[in-house]
């Protein structure tokens, strides 16, 4: 599963930056397609729900999705063989 922010719905209120326990949502810098400054995702693979939703068979944390007033945050399945960015941290 991967975390996505719907650019068509997000209005850039930054409420998600306040509640994520991992600090995945960071305030964005550049405006999106509708002119709102969309939050950027910092290492979204750390998200509990992305990693463990399938294993537990239920939604885990989900605070960002619940507090998002514009229903912009959701989790979607990756396509088969989707290229993934690998970051090696030293």
């Amino acid at each position: 599963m991967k975390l996505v922010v719907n650019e068509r719905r997000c209005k850039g209120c930054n409420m998600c930056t306040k509640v994520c326990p991992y600090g995945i949502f960071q305030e964005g810098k550049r405006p999106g397609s509708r002119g709102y400054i969309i939050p950027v995702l910092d290492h979204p693979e750390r998200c509990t729900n992305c990693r463990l939703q399938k294993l537990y068979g239920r939604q885990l944390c989900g605070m960002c999705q619940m507090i998002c007033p514009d229903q912009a945050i959701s989790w979607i399945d990756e396509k088969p063989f989707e290229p993934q960015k690998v970051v090696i941290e030293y």
Partner: protein
Amino acid sequence: MNLEDWYRQDRLPHIYCAGCGNGTILNCTLRAVEELDYKKEETTFISGIGCSSRAAGYTSSDSLHTTHGRALAFATGLKLVKPRQHVIVFTGDGDCSAIGGNHFIHACRRNIDITVICMNNNIYGMTGGQGSPCTPYGAISTTTPYGMQEQPFDLCKVAEAAGANYVARWTSFHVKELTEAIRVGLETPGLSFIEVMTQCPTSFGSKNKMRQVTQMLDMFRDNAVLKAKADRDAAKGILPSPEKFVVGQFVRRNNPPLGVEAAK
């Protein structure tokens, strides 16, 4: 049915301002409804007039957008005609306490089996930020430029005194607790009243030194006092500070409700 099916997709994105808490409360309500496995045909959302009352228009089940303050009167009628229907009322603080004040007191007294979710944003948001009966003492609004000189209404105490079966108050920052409270309220027979303190960054926050949405969320987090803590403080004789408010479940009782007996 999953959560996304409860939203009316052709109306989204909604017209609320950026950072308005009403969308959060809509999320929590629909999550609670989805957890209880209600069917779309058996659920009706009713609302009055105001920012909060637009929420009923964003749900995919049946909804009624009624006249100002009279959402509870329409809900009473619907519940008595169709007792099997799950009736949920979205209302605002101006809608519920000022213009529909008498309807609210008498709906609590009759103890009709409906769930009332009052989105208290301390102000009349849609018409430009006039002071409402729930504006805190000293707060600045369009009609109170030198600070509010009247004491605010405590809607939870009114509902409790008037005889509602379930009364709770949470804020739009406490999403998990709010979802749980709405779920318990839907399960409780009789009138369930859930007051939700929500932020209005456009009309309330910008005039009261909380220009950013995140500042308003910080205010909710810092000023909300759990009921158990408030009771302990009261037992010790510590007076509550004026900017704090109590959150939690205030009452849950089993008085005979109206609108349930007819279903048999």
